[in-house]
């Protein structure tokens, strides 16, 4: 991974209820930090010794578990037309509480729970209580319960879902982190990245299709997506009544994550940065080339 994979991504924030206070999480330059915990390791140590546990630190831990997790790209939103709703009762069942996010636009809310999946709490509940809780769960929460299997959630699917409910732009930053990690491994010819090529291709496919449909305002247009090698030319062409889009996996990081999929009516094939300037190379609906130079403030 290059040192500046996050160069095109603006900072993001979310608020969580941590103990009796509203605390803020900040993502900046590729790292998530809990600004209200100056001595995070010290707080962790105290919690391990039986002291107060901290929602902020639980978020950081979950983030560390999932920042390379390709399942995040399956669960997360593909774009503005693909709304993801993490259910309220999941956070209640897990002991977390909602608090307002403060991302640009201010419409997201953030929340989190202690622990990976709340399984220890569930296991300690009387059977009837568990049944009652189960009956009140949303379908999403029940789905996670199934994913946990009978007694554990080794993949921490619940944790991934909870991160996606943070709001404040953090879910998209998490996707960017995952994409940066696997994009770099793919570029290096890493065996594991090659083995998981289908996962990478599918993650790219869904996001490209979502952007193309937004671009053309056509929710039914057939789209074929080729995942090309890094350095190959990204293209769009008409084919068999649909569109054939060829872009590298890194398109997720460079184009989709900063919200550049559709810029001024053009579909973005690639976005490169030259200092503070962003060069956007795209195509218009008539497939003519478009080249735009954007300043970071314009992207914001």
């Amino acid at each position, binding site marked *: 991974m290059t040192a500046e994979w996050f160069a095109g991504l603006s900072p993001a924030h979310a608020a969580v209820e941590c103990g009796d206070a509203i605390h803020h999480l900040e993502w900046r330059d590729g790292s998530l930090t809990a600004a209200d915990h100056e001595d995070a390791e010290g707080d962790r140590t105290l919690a391990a010794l039986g002291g107060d546990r901290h929602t902020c630190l639980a978020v950081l831990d979950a983030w560390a578990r999932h920042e390379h997790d390709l*399942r995040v790209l399956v669960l997360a939103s593909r774009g503005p037309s*693909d709304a993801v*709703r*993490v259910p309220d009762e999941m956070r209640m069942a897990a002991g977390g509480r909602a608090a307002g996010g403060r991302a640009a636009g201010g419409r997201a809310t953030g929340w989190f729970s202690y622990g990976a999946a709340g399984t220890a709490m569930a296991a300690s509940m009387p059977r009837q209580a568990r049944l009652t809780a189960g009956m009140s769960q949303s379908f999403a929460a029940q789905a996670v319960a199934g*994913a946990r299997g009978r007694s554990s959630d080794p993949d921490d699917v619940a944790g991934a*879902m909870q991160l996606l409910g943070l709001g404040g732009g953090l879910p998209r930053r998490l996707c960017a982190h995952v994409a940066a990690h696997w994009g770099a491994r793919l570029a290096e010819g890493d065996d594991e990245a090659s083995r998981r090529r289908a996962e990478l291709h599918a993650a790219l*496919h*869904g996001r490209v299709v979502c952007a193309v449909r937004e671009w053309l305002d056509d929710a039914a247009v057939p789209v*074929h997506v080729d995942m090309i090698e890094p350095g190959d030319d990204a293209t769009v062409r008409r084919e*068999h009544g649909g569109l054939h889009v060829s872009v590298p996996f890194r398109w997720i990081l460079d184009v989709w994550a900063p919200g550049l999929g559709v810029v001024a009516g053009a579909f973005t094939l690639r976005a490169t940065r030259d200092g503070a300037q962003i060069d956007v190379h795209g195509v218009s609906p008539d497939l003519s080339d478009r080249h735009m130079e954007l300043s970071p403030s314009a992207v914001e």
Partner: protein
Amino acid sequence: MLLDRSGRACNARPMAAFDAELYLRLAGEAMILEGPNPRQNVGWSSPTTDAASALVAVDALPLETAETITRDYEIAMSLRGDQRSRGAMFRVGRGPQPSGTPFPPARVAVSGQTVETSWGSITVHHVLLGDTSTAMHITATDRSPGGFGMRNIAPVVRDDRGTAMPTFFSGGGGSNGYRGELSGAPALSPSTAWIELDGTRIDLRDNPVQVEVRIEELEPSTPAERHLRQLLASSGPGPRFANPDSIEDVISVLVACGAIQPEDRAIKEVRAVGSAMQGRNATDPDLPPRWRSVMSRSRNPFPGYHDSNDGGRTIVVGAATPAIDGAYVRVDALIVSAQAFAVEVAVSPGHALGPGGWGPVVGGESLSWWAEDDRGNHYLGTMTGSSGSDDYCRSTVQFGPPLDPAAELLMLQPTGSAHRAVVTIPIGEERA
């Protein structure tokens, strides 16, 4: 590959080497982009589960991989408002499923007697008396004020040797009555002449009919052909009850992975059956003969659950089959009424009953329940309820259309992938 709006692979462009995992994941992406509930009221079926099952059936994708992918996309769908928690249905990481074990010999005796109690009534239809277990197939009506339900019914049952067996109920029902099994331990004497339930003696009668059981080999077929045919005939709630799109989705994936040719006879057959199920054409020449028999005798051969014990008569069968492609079946009783007939069965392993029973949503071959009478009529069974475990599951399989009143013999045919059992049950002499 190019997928159309429904996620079905288009054949417009030639494909290079087929990538089964990518195909399944792109089907999942198409489902996500389509939004919640691309299909309504389809049991466990979805574009990803259908594709996953097909790919596993033809060995194009390992079961574990298919289940993991399908589960993840089902969870993703539930985050988008899909009103089914199908992620809970997958068995990822639970290890291999058990193999079947033969059923030990057991005596099946018939009763039909009703016992009145302070809270309602219990009708004992038949009793399974094994060396280590005893089970009574019952229906019950709860008339107590407020209705406590069957969860509170746990009578002690005694035999003529003085053995007392506390029982528990497993089954289901509601305000119209309950239906299921009372079982317990220690087992009652297999040779007891009567049992006593709540102070009332119930006489037991043995099976007067001679039941013949044999195993037959099926005509050879490819995994893809078997999968297509089983989709329609499976006893669990599958595409038989679904949007016909699901059949086309499965055909698409099997063709795409090269497991079957587009002009294969099995494809014509399943399309003809699907069309007939939609009420369009029950005389299609591509309808296989037994399907034609089923579909032509009734506009709706599978009208839904009918309680065969309500006014029906019970013929004790008490037969166990040899292995049917690894599964064992015990047929306890045949229940015949004017509207339908049903068999009470036990199956080992449990997953042989299919996804509606104890089986996995993806992978695992379940039995189909065909039957034929001595007048050339065919019948197809649907599981109407089940209980059990991974090792063993019991169920009522209800058949349609209604039994031909002139039939003298019924050949029950639990059918696996390469073999079927034929359990021949005389039904005419009982009627006389």
